[in-house]
């Protein structure tokens, strides 16, 4: 147990109703010949999924009694994944389709919190299908649409044939503002190479190093407090580990509900290793990931995606973590 090669990858498909989730799902299922997939669908989903292993789920969000107020998990997912792991035939992957109005956080948190799920499966990536025509309106009208973009590792911007170039650029800017990490793929009718959405291992700390995301310090226009935005910080001065841990853990404890996702690569004074972390709300996966590569500049980079980030004094807090 616990070995990566035995963990079945789980891809989470989010997106508003009508964006093209079912089209994408059917594309995955018809193109991957010889692979065995289980598909977990919600009862309000669109019909017509062509697979012999389709499981109905209820999207039950459970609170955990672990003193963490925003720690919610998908109870149905724990039950279904545990059941699927008892199967005699090995699954190549599991795909979870969420309802259009689902918050992806409980799905992601399930993989942090439930030991059985974490032992036998791994969250591969969150893929959000967005409708290029309607996304802007949906982002303004629904928290859930913002969260789906904020949590995405990949945004499949679909139906681009129905918008002109300037409108497409505007939608892309909006996505980038919410989530600078998500890879944006343009499609019509969800035509995408499956290698771009499956087996991404996006939640693996090693991948954060491999992909070297764009941690540019963001200049930040003032948005509505309620909008999801991102802020990132870079420091060439090594950080003081104790100060950072103190600041960061307090920050997540008090503001974890508004902080949706965090990622970072950190350079601590007196440490030879690079420290990498990524988190969902208050839950965090962090580890030293080996020495800094030779000839590469050492610096600390971190990014926050969330609401009300302006009010958290993040810049000041981060500056205070620099070693003297």
């Amino acid at each position: 147990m616990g070995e990566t090669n035995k963990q079945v990858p789980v891809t989470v498909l989010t997106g508003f109703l009508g964006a093209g989730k079912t089209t994408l799902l059917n594309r995955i299922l018809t193109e991957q010949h010889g692979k065995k997939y289980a598909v977990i669908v919600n009862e309000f989903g669109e019909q017509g999924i062509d697979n012999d292993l389709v499981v109905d789920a209820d999207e039950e969000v459970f609170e955990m009694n672990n003193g963490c107020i925003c720690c919610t998990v998908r109870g149905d997912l724990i039950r279904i994944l545990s059941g699927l792991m008892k199967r005699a035939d090995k699954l190549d992957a599991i795909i979870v389709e969420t309802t259009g109005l689902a918050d992806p956080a409980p799905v992601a948190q399930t993989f942090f919190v439930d030991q059985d799920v974490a032992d036998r499966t791994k969250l591969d990536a969150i893929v959000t299908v967005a409708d290029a025509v309607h996304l802007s309106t949906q982002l303004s009208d629904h928290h859930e649409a913002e969260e789906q973009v904020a949590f995405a590792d990949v945004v499949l911007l679909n139906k681009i044939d129905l918008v002109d170039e300037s409108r497409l650029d505007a939608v892309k800017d909006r996505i980038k503002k919410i989530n600078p990490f998500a890879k944006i793929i343009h499609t019509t009718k969800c035509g995408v190479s499956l290698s771009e959405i499956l087996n991404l291992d996006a939640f693996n700390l090693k991948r954060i190093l491999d992909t070297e995301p764009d941690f540019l310090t963001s200049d930040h226009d003032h948005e509505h407090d309620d909008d999801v935005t991102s802020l990132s910080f870079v420091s060439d001065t090594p950080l003081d580990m104790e100060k950072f841990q103190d600041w960061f853990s307090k920050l997540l404890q008090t503001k974890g509900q508004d902080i949706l996702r965090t990622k970072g690569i950190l350079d601590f004074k007196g440490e030879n290793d690079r420290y990498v972390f990524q988190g969902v709300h208050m839950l965090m996966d962090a580890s030293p990931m080996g020495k800094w590569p030779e000839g590469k500049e050492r610096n600390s980079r971190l990014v926050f995606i969330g609401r009300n980030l302006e009010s958290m004094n993040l810049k000041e807090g981060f500056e205070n973590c620099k070693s003297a």
Partner: protein
Amino acid sequence: MKADSNKFPELNKTKFENRGKEFKLGIPVTNAITIGNSVAVGFGDGTVRIFRSGQISEVIKAHSGVVLSISKDGEDILTGGDDGRFLKISLDGEINEIANFGSRWVDHVTAYNGSLVCTSGNIVYLWMPNKKEPKLLEHESTIGGVAFDSKGRRLAVSRYGGVTLWKKDYSNKWSSSNLIWKGSHNKVIFSTDDRFLVTSMQENQLHFWRLKDKTDSFMSGYGAKVKSFAFVYDSKFLVTSGSNEAICWPFDGNGPEGRKPICLPYVGNKLVTFVEPFPNENAIFTGLSDGSVFLSEIEKSTNTIIIRSFTESEVTTIAVTEDCSSILIGDIGGNILWTSIWDEEEK
């Protein structure tokens, strides 16, 4: 077993392994039920195999997916599967489909004197004896477990937020009351004397209610989820998995509140994954995550013997025949040991 650190137990087969039959089926064993002196075993490929003394096992192709739950109604086996089917299977292998829910799984099955129960999603389906149509008992969230009390008068249904306790009056009408505790409740059981109700939770702990006054409390301190737990024959102890020791809580008197459990340690310090009380004794069979199985007397922890050595696959089921003559052990790797408990001269 006397610990001998210079010796690797897996190199030596136990006497139980030597005189029993071992099967390496390679299909995950999901559950088992004792029917008289036979044991019916459910597998991850949907098959059910019946083990009887002196006979080879028979394979019944019951479900197309996993056998998620197993129980019995008299001499018949009841199974629920991830193919959405609720089946009644005779020991001769005759299959009778009671219900089919399609892509919705049948998570739990149980029965009492001809009353058959299965759950799918948040609904309990209850077939009264000789009735064709089930009664539907609906709950606010997906059901984690079901259990009848020893008289079949009460049906406990665990779910998110607590347990719904259904009670049957003498005109066969069911009414419900709620036992509330925050969090997600999974498996539920009554104590054998019907005085207590115990659930396992999504967190690494158990919750219990004393039914006469509905007081409740929890049992915590586990390193893992408690998936297997059972009362010994007279309810003196609740034996539990979820730790590197078999944790046995005292349930005589007013229950475990304020009292310490007896912890039975095992060689190798592995996680206990399955516990099965020895019929009519204060003793348990304990299965570990490395496949080994021990028999211990609860109040004399030095009195422990090894039944099965390592298989490197976690024990998922242990079943003892009604006459206590044979034991079946199954694990996630599909290894089965079916052996007599006593030597010829010990009988």
